[in-house]
């Protein structure tokens, strides 16, 4: 076996090894994610997103309360880091955007 041949083999071994390492890293991440939580809230989120009617509830984004919350500006008594939107059943709280 020539030296070049050995080098080639080492190179291909290294690249296989890299692929292997990337796989283990990716696998561990998905294992960790599954361990952190088995829930899939994205499914509900996407379902709501597709049933939402374009333009409905957009006004919330223009309110002072929302803008202050987003940019972290103090509003009156509150330090503005939490925003509680309340309303009776069926007013569209889940669907505001």
């Amino acid at each position, binding site marked *: 076996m020539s030296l070049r041949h050995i080098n080639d083999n080492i190179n291909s071994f290294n690249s296989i090894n890299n692929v292997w390492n990337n796989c283990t890293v990716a696998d561990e991440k998905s294992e960790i994610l599954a*361990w952190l939580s088995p829930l899939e*809230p994205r499914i*509900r989120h996407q379902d709501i997103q597709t049933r939402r009617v374009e333009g409905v509830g957009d006004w919330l984004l223009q309110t002072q309360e929302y803008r202050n*919350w*987003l940019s972290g500006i103090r509003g009156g008594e509150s330090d503005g880091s939490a*925003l*509680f939107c*309340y*309303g009776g059943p069926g007013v569209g709280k889940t669907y505001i955007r």
Partner: protein
Amino acid sequence: MGGNAAVACFYFDFATPEEQSPATILGSVLRQVVSGIDEVPERIAKAFRDREKVIGGQRLALDEIVEFIQDMSSSRSTFICIDALDECAAGHRVKLLDSLHQILQMSPSARVFITGRPHIRGEIDTHLAKRATTRSITPTNNDILTFLRAKLRDDTMPDAMDERLEEEIIENITETVSEM
């Protein structure tokens, strides 16, 4: 706020109460925050490897989850959105609010967005202390119009509909809603 913010959501539902302890809710939030970054923070990976050795791969406790969320939201804008908090069991709800308060206290770049029925307002004021702003949600006339027109467009029996009937439906519903 920059384009690199983390957004995590949780939707409460009366139908699945067993999934709704503060540790499972915030565990789900932590998972969403971690899934958005390339590399799992070493502290979390280490906690995972340590637990993996225990049979069943024991999950994190609430205070550990809170600490990890605090860690991660201190370096990155993090938005935690919780829908229908009133549907959470009362005991869990208070604990969850206390944990959210702990997160907000430690991480200035964390934001919490909550929706719920008005009766839990007092609880939010008490447990989020001075951190919460409240806002009432009611559909505007424009919301109702836009929504109705979209629904009428999707009508599965368009032959039964004419312009007069459409206007009548819209007029009647918007009037009834504004009287509610």
